[in-house]
């Protein structure tokens, strides 16, 4: 009881110093939490990918396309339960800054192959039947205030011109990790326009998304598809959606590792700063510790008071940091929605944040605790006179 009273009063003895230390720890814990989340989210696309979906692309590179005629041939490969055509459109909404992923898809097969994009029946029907229809994720629609029936125009980058769509549906994700910030429109609209304007670019497909019934069929089916187009003009490379996603993520692996390291460096830095502050504090109180010892208090009483104060300050910072993480994540989610459709703090991250704060408190407390506990009374008392 007494020791707790002493810890709390001592902690706030120098209000400014206590506040600065708590703020420092809070910011470090906040940064740590956000960076950790960022790294785990970067791999989220990989984790959320389906193991019963394959992606077929040109074997040369993703920027090369394949003839639309492949669709029927892939469908006939044994084990395939669905095929959808997809083209990365890369359109710009009003200005370059408003980036969001947008694709031309073949609506019916697309919704079958991607059961995690959920549309209600009426919206689904009007998307399937409207040649200029489009659907947007719930987040994306909310961000620009789109309502069903709105006219949306995108400026083409890969496919030149001004493209006008009518929003026919707003999908939501089946899982929390489902990306709700994408935009899909009718592949036929793209293809027919190309036929009229640049015929040589018509009937070309960027990727085929292929569904199989069971995950264990994936490897065999992928091999079979690639064998089908061997020695053709456009050879293919088929891999699981996970492998496909990983090939993107792999490009940024080094950056992610760097961020990972930075997240720990932040903690080490605050540890050193907090340790210095605690040591300074303990040094100033040597005579008080000596006085307590004179009165009969033991080394472990002093140790408890010093260590407790260090832990108390660090945990206050930790709690503040964790509490700040949520609004900060919300803010990041709204500003970085194009990169991180869901910026959610995992419970495990919160636990890690508290563990980090605890370690900061432990490490910062060790040296002053040892000093306080082992101080020689006569020596300590001389500090005053």
């Amino acid at each position, binding site marked *: 009881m007494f020791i707790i009273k002493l810890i709390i*009063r001592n902690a706030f003895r120098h209000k400014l110093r206590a506040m600065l230390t708590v703020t420092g720890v809070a910011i470090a814990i906040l940064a740590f939490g956000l960076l950790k989340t960022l790294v785990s989210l970067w791999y989220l696309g990989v984790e959320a990918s389906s193991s019963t979906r394959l992606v077929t692309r040109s074997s040369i590179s993703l920027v090369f396309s394949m003839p639309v005629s492949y669709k029927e041939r892939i469908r006939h490969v044994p084990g395939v339960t669905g095929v959808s055509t997809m083209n990365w459109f890369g359109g710009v909404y009003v200005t370059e800054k408003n980036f969001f992923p947008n694709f031309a898809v073949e609506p019916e097969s697309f919704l079958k192959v991607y059961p995690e994009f959920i549309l209600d029946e009426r919206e689904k029907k009007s998307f399937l039947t409207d040649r200029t229809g489009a659907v947007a994720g719930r987040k994306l629609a909310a961000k620009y205030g789109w309502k069903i029936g709105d006219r949306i125009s995108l400026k083409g980058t890969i496919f030149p011109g001004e493209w006008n769509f009518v929003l026919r549906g707003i999908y939501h994700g089946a899982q929390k990790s489902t990306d709700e910030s994408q935009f899909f429109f009718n592949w036929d609209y793209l293809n027919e326009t190309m036929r009229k304007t640049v015929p040589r670019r018509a009937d070309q497909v960027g990727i085929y998304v292929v569904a199989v019934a069971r995950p264990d069929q994936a490897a065999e089916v992928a091999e079979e598809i690639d064998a089908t187009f061997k020695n053709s003009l456009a050879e293919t490379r088929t891999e699981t959606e996970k492998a496909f996603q990983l090939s993107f993520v792999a490009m940024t692996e080094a950056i992610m590792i760097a961020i990972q390291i930075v997240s720990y460096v932040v903690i080490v830095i605050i540890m050193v700063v907090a340790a210095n502050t605690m040591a300074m504090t303990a040094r100033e109180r040597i005579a008080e510790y000596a006085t307590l010892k*004179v009165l009969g*208090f033991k080394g472990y009483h002093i140790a408890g008071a010093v260590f407790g104060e260090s832990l108390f300050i660090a945990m206050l910072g930790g709690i503040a940091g964790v509490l700040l993480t949520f609004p900060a994540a919300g803010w990041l989610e709204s500003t970085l929605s194009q990169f991180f459709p869901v910026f959610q703090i995992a419970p495990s991250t919160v636990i890690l944040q508290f563990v980090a704060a605890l370690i900061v408190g432990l490490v910062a407390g060790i040296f002053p605790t040892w000093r306080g506990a082992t101080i020689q*009374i006569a020596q300590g008392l001389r500090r005053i006179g």
Partner: protein
Amino acid sequence: MVAIDSEIVRLIDVSKSYYRGSQMIPVLEGISFDIVAGEFLALMGPSGSGKSTLLNLIAGIDKPDSGIIAVNGVDITTLSESDLAAWRAANVGFIFQFYNLIPVLTAFENVELPLLLTGLSRKKRKEHVETVLSLVSLSDRMDHYPSELSGGQQQRVAIARAMVADPPILVADEPTGDLDRVSAAEILGLMSRLVEDFGKTIIMVTHDPKSAEKAGRIVHLEKGELVSSSFSHQ
């Protein structure tokens, strides 16, 4: 163990030196004298003569290199660190030049400190604290923090703290060294009362001959040696 009559403290051939690196600095050399129970003793001597060191030895917060320090028949030089802490809590009250109150604790809480180590109930502790605070006439300042008290008042709180566990011996290292004349006289008057009315034994280090006059006996130290011991007015 050493036999005693009325001596509460008996020093026999006590020596103490400090080391600075490999260089030995002798501080006390072969000090022997007795202190009788109920005595008010003043330790005087020039700065650096070893007064504080001697006081610390008698109070059990430092240990001599050689010699015997018997307090109430117990040779405290043989006690372990931990036993010594318990011994101090039961036998010695401390009064310092700069009061050494804990700034984050109120007058009441500071005085209560020594009692926290005893098995006393909260209620009993409160009674004791209130009693000693009224003894030093600070009943109305119980909830004040040290920074809200004058030097004289802080020293009175410190005296209450030294008294609260009712130890037979009080040691004071220049208790009036940081006070003005009026406050100093007040503190000395209070200490005299503790000897006369409560039978405490007080050992006080002082530079001030006027303060020393209040004591029953004055012991002079010079360069670590006892040079004179004289009884004053009484």
